């Protein structure tokens, strides 16, 4: 049905941090591999306090490591070309394709001969050549009007990959409908074209009460809501310990997971795999997977 997939991209962006982008991308990786596709995760630029160590001893973003596990592949440095780790006292360490660089992040970024985009582009291309689908994760919000020129993670990557984007909002926190409508209002027309639809995350309560709100959002933006994912209790995949993102209410991933993959006990690895299946099942049931596969297959030609 979809044997023409070669490096097709789908991107997950969020209206803010902590809305569940990583979780959605992780679930999509597991769903796709369950359905027989070769899939890889990608996040161009990441800022976090801790990281995931690959089997090859490289350091990448925590979520991308988990997403690689979800996709049942080994994590590689290409999955996260730039990782910045604040070290305190204004110092930031920069890790490029999994390899920590000596010196200050700002200086290193400035010294890249053609800037960061060739690095990002080459890593993305590398993955696209090897995999049927690349699930790309954004960072923060694509609508930070004061930071658009400097943004390395969101619409710049969507443009590079010509990727349709699922914009995700956390409804548990309140204001999700406003955040979706507001995000679109702040995108320019080209950026707006990338947004294929919305995913509502962490929902609790009566869907019948929510539905009229979703109708209003669809009417104002002209984009469909492609899924409402319920709040998933006792999630234990850990969450990126980045500045401003809430820690998981279970053991922080620094304690539990920031260790080389080959040091993970078999029981831990199996438990995590079960958790990935559990999450994938909930998300699969919550999304319009037919429409999402259409987006993956047809890309932005669809709309």
């Amino acid at each position, binding site marked *: 049905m979809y044997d023409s997939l070669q490096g097709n991209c789908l991107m997950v962006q969020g*209206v803010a941090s902590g809305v569940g982008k990583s979780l959605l991308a992780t679930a999509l990786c597991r769903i796709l591999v369950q359905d027989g596709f070769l899939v890889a995760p990608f996040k161009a630029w990441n800022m976090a306090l801790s990281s995931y160590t690959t089997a090859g001893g490289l350091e990448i973003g925590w979520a991308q490591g988990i997403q690689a596990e979800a996709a049942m592949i080994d994590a590689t440095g290409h999955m996260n070309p730039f990782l910045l780790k604040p070290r305190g006292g204004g110092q930031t360490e920069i890790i490029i394709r999994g390899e920590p660089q000596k010196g200050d992040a700002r200086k290193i970024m400035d010294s890249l001969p053609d800037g960061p985009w060739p690095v990002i582009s080459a890593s993305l291309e590398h993955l696209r050549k090897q995999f049927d689908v690349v699930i790309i994760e954004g960072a923060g919000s694509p609508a930070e009007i004061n930071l658009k020129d400097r943004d390395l993670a969101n619409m710049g990557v969507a443009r590079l990959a010509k990727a349709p984007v699922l914009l995700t909002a956390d409804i548990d926190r309140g204001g999700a*409908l406003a955040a979706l409508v507001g995000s679109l*209002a702040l995108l320019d027309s080209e950026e707006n074209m990338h947004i294929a639809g919305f995913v509502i995350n962490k929902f609790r309560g009566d869907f019948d009460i929510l539905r009229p709100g979703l109708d*209003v959002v669809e009417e104002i933006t002209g984009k469909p809501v492609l899924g409402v994912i319920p709040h998933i209790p006792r999630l234990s995949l850990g969450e990126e310990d980045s500045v401003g993102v809430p820690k998981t209410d279970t053991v922080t991933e620094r304690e539990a997971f920031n260790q080389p993959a080959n040091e993970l006990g078999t029981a831990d690895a199996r438990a995590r795999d079960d958790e990935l299946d559990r999450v994938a099942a909930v998300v699969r049931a919550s999304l319009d997977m037919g429409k999402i596969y259409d987006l993956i297959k047809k890309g932005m030609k669809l709309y």
Partner: protein
Amino acid sequence: MNNKVPMGRTLMVQGCASSVGKSFITAALCRIFARDGWRVAPFKAQNMGSKSFFTAEGKEINAVQAVQAKVTGVPPSPDMNPIFQKPITDTVAEVIVLGESLGNMTVQEYFHFKKNEGKAVVAGALKRLKEQFDLIILEGGGSPAEVNLRDHDLVNMGAAALADAPVILVGDIDRGGVFAYLTGTMLLLTEEERRRVKAVLINKFRGDLSLLEPGLALLEEKISRPILGVIPYINDVCLPLEEGLDRADDDGVCLREESVSESWQGAYEKLARQVRESVSMDLLYDIVGLPIPKS
């Protein structure tokens, strides 16, 4: 400035989402205006939480409004939190009205109460406060733009209408997307509700203000409202906040004590000072419609 007749002015603090810092900002603003010599009271029409405070008369209100009253230097009163819901299960809560329990209600029973009696309860409390105070600072709940939850709203624009209060909308920049949240909230309000919003406030800012400033100018243009100020992220204030289910609050949770200790007063003094330095007090006085005190 203890004029004989209380001025009965109002100001409402609403947020784009939960946990943007409404409670802290309300407490700080109460304290700022009290320091300037006004008789100030905090207010939240309807509050859900599990932490109670019992007044001297044995009336029960949410601990948050009690703390806000204490740091303002006024005794907590049930008029400051006329409706207090204490959740028992996902669909049942104990409903406490003007400090007295009406027993447990299901979601439907509460909706019925809200529709038929809620407005009168809230209006009555506001009227009594206006007769005693120069300024009532109302705190909203969640977001005023939940378009599917508008009917019979008592906590946000419903309260603002009953109090005829000008509104300041607060966004949390620490989690990202603040421009989208503020813009979207304004877009989803009705024309009348939008007219109440006089300014926006950005809270929990960390980092380089010079990177933010171009965005502020763009935002002011987009929403046609001034930015009252940018409040920095403040680590060390504690306030008993509503308990969300499974929510670990990054602002911290305090001990449940009825008396506010010296250290709390000290912490709120610091918070009030920081907020005062971060906002345009001239604009705030203009919005509230009170004369700026001569220093």
